[in-house]
Structures are given as structure tokens and as C-alpha cells.
């Protein structure tokens, strides 16, 4: 009897599991064409509630925007739910599978391709085309939200990488504090001069055990030379590591910083949480980092007078930035897509965007870089200027390849920078990236 009962329960469980699994694979209905993104009424005078999920990393910004939107809209209310900074994809996927997703999600832009390629989001191409500033939207954010020519996302906020430097230390080392480095050679020579100041002062710093931080700050130098580590469309991408001169130059710069002791010894174990604290403590000459990172850590008196930022240069000039931050996306099964689009377009308006600098974020529209903006927010004008030159890799393997200790990006960095073996590093990188790309395409 006991065994029979157990078998019955087990069989029931498996049948239920199979049924649940089958039902979750069915596609979700898209908004009808009469009220969908192509219609004139989409995003206009919507009513009801908009469920907005945002990552905790944009908490301050999200709370302020939602509170102001709700205060100025009587028929449409936005309800904010904060999701984990790194596990937001799991929450979103679960809600989509359950058929109860938010109306708008602020998704880490790098994770967009995971969702766009299987129809999880509403196709916003027609709605975006109607925006007067469509061509001014952050190219990296839009690129990550585009799949097979259709646009599934628009930028929510930009978290961009820049080159921070300490003006006081520049002066003490006999350098011009208004002339930040614009090539790798200048970065190295400036760091060497500042390092000579001694007394615990180092020329340069980086988070040497934080894979994501390195991807955020080292790659723009490579992109500045119009070189990329993966190329091709999703599904048929290839790795371009061996023979990549711009990559070799970037790794060589960091290897020299390490071997010449121009960085503190503990950068080797800095895995992120303490990144930038040495810079804000006034002990570092130059630090590639995020705009919001230093804006949040430093006092307002230090910003501009002691700390200033410049675009992240490539080896021989030009510059780029990592188009980080989040994209807005409307899940295909959202209950109030029109309300969601009304909220999104309200956020993208100039009035809201101009609040971004004070909240540690960069606006997502390049057309907002006016002389008035530069005068009011000189430090945020630097990343906003770089936004038009920005990029973010559109690939399904970003997290695996760049954000993990076991990923090929960090293995390559470690071998090249700490072990000083460039040839082996490039071979490891080529085979590691190729393997991941093949797995993702399978």
C-alpha cells in the first residue's frame, strides 16, 4: 500500500510537471494592432496602473522619477518594484513564464539579447520611430535592444565609463590639471610621474579581481580603435582575439602599470566593493571608472575642484565608453503597455533627463549635450559627449565571457597582466571566447 501510494504521488507529480512545463512554452499574446505601438493612441492619456520593475542600482533615480510622475499624472499611476542588481533577469523570466510580467522593466542593457531573440518583449520599432529625438538615443542601448531589425527597448539611464583623474596630484607632479591624457602613452607617462610623488601615492588604479569592472573600463580603449572582441550577428559570432592589436595595446598598458608598480598591490584582489575608494581618498592619479561611481563616493566640493573626468582614450587617440546602464522594455504580455510607453516617453523628456547628473546617472539622449548642460554639469558632460561614441557588445555570452572569474576575458587579463604572458593570454582568450560562442549558437 505504501509503495503504491508513493508511486501514485510520484506519477501525479510528474504528470503535473510535464503539464506545467508544456503550458509555459506557449507564446504570449502581443498587444493588438488597434492599440499597439503603431497606433496613434499608444502611450497617450493611458489610465490605470503601470507596474515598473527597476534594478536596485537605479533605486534613487527610479524612486524620484516615479514619485514625480505620480504627482503629475492623476489617471495613470506607476508602482515601482526594485529587483536584485544582478539577478533581475531571473525575476523577469519567471514573471514572463508565469504570464504576469511587469508593464515595464528596467533591464541591465547587456541582458537585452537574452530576451529580445525569443519574442519576450513588445516590438517598439514603430513607436520609437515617432520620437522626434529617436536618432539621438544612446546607440549602445538601442543596439542591445535591437534584434533582426526590430527595436524592443529604449534607454532608461546610462552608466558610462570615463577616465577620472586627480587634479591636485597632477599639479604636484608638474602636470597640467586641465590637460588629461588622451593616449595610452600619456596615461602611462602621467602615471609614472604621479607615482614618483611617493608617500602612498600611486599613479593608477583598477579593480584587478573584478571582471565586470575591467570589462567596463578596459574595453572602451579597444573600441576607440574600432576593434571588437566578438563580431558578427547573434548565432554566427566569431572571436577576434589573436592578432587584435588594439586588445594587445590595452593589455600591455595594464601589464606595464602592474609590473612597474604604478598601482597599489591590493588591486590584484579588489573584486569591486572597494573599487574607487583609494581614488576618492586622494591617493591615486588616474582611474578609469564610472561617472556615477565617483559622483556617489566623492563630496560635491571635491567634484570638479579635486576630481575631474575625461573621455576614455584608445591607444593613439579617439575615445569611447561602455554604454552601460539599463534599457526600458515592455514585456509582450504586459497588461498596460500603453501606460508603460507613456511613462517611458515622459522619462525620456528633457525635463526629466536633466535631473540625471545629480542622481549619479547620465542622460540617454545625445541631443541634450548643449552648452547650457555642459556649463551646469561639466563632469556629466564628458560621458554624455562619449555617449555618441559608445558601444556595448551585443552577444548572448556577455555575462559568461566578461563577468565571471572563470570567463575567458578575465583569464586572458590575468595571464597577460599579472603573469606577463601575452601570447598565451591571447590564445586562451581566442579559444575561450570561441567555445562560449559555439555553445551559445548550438
Amino acid at each position, binding site marked *: *500500500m505504501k509503495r503504491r*501510494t508513493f508511486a501514485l*504521488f*510520484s506519477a*501525479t*507529480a*510528474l504528470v*503535473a*510537471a*510535464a503539464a*506545467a*512545463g508544456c503550458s509555459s*512554452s506557449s507564446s504570449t499574446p502581443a498587444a493588438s494592432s488597434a492599440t499597439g505601438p503603431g497606433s496613434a493612441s499608444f502611450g497617450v492619456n493611458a489610465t490605470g496602473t503601470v507596474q515598473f520593475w527597476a534594478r536596485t542600482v537605479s533605486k534613487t533615480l527610479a524612486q524620484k522619477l516615479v514619485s514625480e510622475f505620480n504627482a503629475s499624472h492623476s489617471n495613470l499611476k506607476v508602482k515601482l518594484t526594485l529587483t536584485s542588481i544582478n*539577478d533581475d*533577469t*531571473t525575476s523577469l*523570466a519567471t514573471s*514572463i*513564464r508565469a504570464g504576469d510580467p511587469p508593464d515595464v522593466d528596467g533591464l541591465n542593457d547587456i541582458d537585452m539579447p*537574452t*530576451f529580445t*531573440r*525569443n*519574442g*519576450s518583449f513588445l516590438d517598439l520599432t514603430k513607436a520609437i520611430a515617432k520620437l522626434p529625438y529617436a536618432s539621438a538615443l544612446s546607440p549602445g542601448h538601442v543596439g542591445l535592444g535591437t534584434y533582426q531589425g526590430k527595436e524592443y527597448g529604449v534607454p532608461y539611464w546610462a552608466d558610462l565609463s570615463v577616465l577620472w583623474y586627480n587634479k591636485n596630484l597632477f599639479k604636484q607632479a608638474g602636470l597640467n590639471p586641465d590637460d588629461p591624457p588622451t593616449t595610452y602613452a600619456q596615461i602611462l607617462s602621467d602615471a609614472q610621474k604621479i607615482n614618483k610623488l611617493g608617500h602612498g601615492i600611486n599613479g593608477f588604479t583598477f579593480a584587478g*579581481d573584478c571582471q565586470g569592472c575591467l570589462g567596463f573600463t578596459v574595453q572602451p580603449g579597444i573600441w576607440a580603435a574600432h576593434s571588437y572582441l566578438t563580431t558578427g550577428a547573434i548565432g554566427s559570432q566569431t572571436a577576434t582575439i589573436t592578432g587584435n592589436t588594439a586588445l594587445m595595446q590595452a593589455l600591455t598598458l595594464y601589464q606595464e602599470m602592474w609590473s612597474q608598480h604604478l598601482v*597599489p*598591490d*591590493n588591486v*590584484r*584582489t579588489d*573584486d569591486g566593493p*572597494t573599487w574607487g575608494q583609494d581614488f576618492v581618498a586622494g591617493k591615486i592619479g588616474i582611474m578609469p571608472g564610472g561617472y556615477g561611481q565617483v559622483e556617489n563616493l566623492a563630496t560635491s566640493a571635491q567634484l570638479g575642484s579635486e576630481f575631474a573626468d575625461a573621455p576614455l582614450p584608445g591607444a593613439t587617440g579617439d575615445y569611447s565608453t561602455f554604454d552601460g546602464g539599463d534599457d526600458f522594455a515592455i514585456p509582450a504580455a504586459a497588461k498596460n503597455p500603453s501606460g508603460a510607453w507613456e511613462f517611458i516617453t515622459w522619462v525620456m523628456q528633457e525635463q526629466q533627463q536633466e535631473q540625471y547628473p545629480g542622481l549619479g546617472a547620465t542622460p540617454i539622449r545625445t541631443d541634450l549635450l548643449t552648452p547650457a548642460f555642459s556649463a551646469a554639469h561639466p563632469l556629466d558632460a564628458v560621458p554624455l559627449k562619449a555617449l555618441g561614441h559608445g558601444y556595448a557588445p551585443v552577444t548572448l555570452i556577455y*555575462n*559568461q565571457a566578461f*563577468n*565571471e*572569474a*572563470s570567463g575567458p576575458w*578575465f*583569464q586572458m587579463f*590575468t595571464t597577460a597582466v599579472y603573469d606577463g604572458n601575452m601570447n598565451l593570454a591571447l590564445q586562451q582568450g581566442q579559444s575561450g571566447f570561441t567555445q562560449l560562442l559555439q*555553445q551559445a549558437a548550438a
Partner: protein
Amino acid sequence: MITDESGPRDSTVPRARPVKPSPSWPAALLRGGSLGARRARTGMILVSPAFALVAVFVLFPLGFAVYISLTDWPLIGPYHFTGGRNYTELIHDPVFIHSVVFTLLYTAIVTGPILVLGYAMAAFVRANRPGSVVFRTAFFLPFIVGLATESFMLLLELQPDSGVVDAVLGKLGLASVSTAWTVHYDLALGVICVFVVWFASGLTMMILMGGMQGIPGDLYEAANVDGATWWQKERRITIPMLRRNIALSLIISVIGSFLAFNQFYILTQGGPGTSTEPIVMWIYQEAFIAYHLGYATAGAIALVVVVAIISAAQFFLLRDDDTPRPRRRG
């Protein structure tokens, strides 16, 4: 066992009736059939709520997980039944195999010291001497505070040039003040093992101390009369009497080591490379970084099976010999 024959045999006295169930019992279910059958039914009714909970919260998810492990379940989007392909790939996946070998190595390193240190601490604090409570608290505290919190604290203290570990070892001349513990395989494994032994031996101490305090004092008094030494008393009385407690603490400790995640995730992130990546972290990476949920679930099912086998083996090896076993007839 009480049967119908247990009543008085004198036929002039009415036979004792079975105990009447309270009126709230569903009488229909208990009516009819022999007492044995009724008792079995009562038993079924009594355990059915617990069984229903187990079915909903254990059997169903487990069955569902087995099903997921037989598919190419992605984070989002359609999936396909792939049969045993995930399991075939698993045994050919060098990263998974490495995580299994690493987990076995880690378990082999920490299990003995946790037991020995836990036993030593239990022996030290078992008597109700002044100060015992203070030591018990101090020894058990690491377990109470929690592995994740302590891992973060350790991470800060392991920082070269700023952490207390390098500062102290540097002063003693045992290590360089800029030793980067968490980025070298040997150093990372060593420091995590020491840390975990410190963390987990408190629980072993509590389990063993409870057992020690339950051993009758007469045994030790008799041993004292016979002139037994401290070691003889431990070996001949304490350890044999603690068999069950030792078995329990070993099983908890081994399962804990097999399921290790926090300390590695926080301190090394599995690095350098994947050298310090235990099985659970491999599962996490595959599921939530690579989004291969079907494949990761296959790894999780494999882990469940391995842990079940190891626990069963430990139960078998450390079973109570007092239980009489049927002799084989020759």
C-alpha cells in the same frame, strides 16, 4: 503488541473493548474490518497531512526538476525534450568533473579537522565548570553569526596591505604583508579550509557535548575505580557511547561540505579560473549566468544522488551495532 487476545480470559467478565475513538474521528473510516486494518487506516489518516506536504513541496518539485533536467530548458522561451543528453554531457564536461573532484578534495580536507576540533572543544566544555558557558558560547558563536557574514569580513581582512591577516602574519614573519590570499589556488583553498573548520566545528561541539552529557557518570566512576587513564576513558567509554552523535555530526558536516557555496562565491568567486569552484557554484553558474537551466538541473540532480549515496553509506557504516541482526542460516 496489543491484540484481541489481550483481554481477560475469564468468560464471565465482559471482554474489554478496544479504546473508543473520540467522537470527532470520522467513524465510518474506522468502522468495520479487524483492529489491525482499522489501526492501519488510522495511521494513514494521521500521516496523510504530512505526506501531502511532502508530496507538494518535495516530491513534486523533485519530479519537476527531474523533468527539467531532461530538457534544454532556457531562461526564457521554448524548450525541447532532450532525453539523457544533459547527463551524457555532464560526465564529459571537464569543468563539472573538476568541480566534483574539487568538492571531494575540500570535503576530505575539512571533515576530519572539524570532527577532531569539535570533539576537543566538546571535551573541554562538557563539564559544568566555571567559565564553561563562556567557552561554549565563544566556540559556537561562529556558527551562529553565519558563513556569509563571516566570509565578507574575512574578505576584507585578507586584503593585501590593509587586512589584519597579512599584518599579523607579516609581523610574525610567516607571510608577506602583500600576500594575495584569494587569487592563488593553494592559498585560497588553505585559508577557506581553516576558516570553515573554525566555523563548523562549533556545531560538532554542540552535538557531541549533548551526547557526552548523556553518558551516565557511573561508567566513569567505575573506570576511575579501575584506574583508567583519561585517554582510556575517552577511548573505551566516551567515543563508543557517542557513536550516534559522531555519525550525525559527520553526516551534517559532509553534506555541508558537498553543498558549499557561500564561502567560495564570496572569497574566490571560484577563481583563479574555475580552480576553486565547488559543485553548487558550477550549478549556479550554469543556471544563472549561462542560463542553461536544464543542464544545471541535471548537475543538481546528480548532486542530490551523490549526497544521498554518501549519506546512506555513512548511515550504514556508522549504524548502531546494538541492533540485533538476523543471522545468516547456513
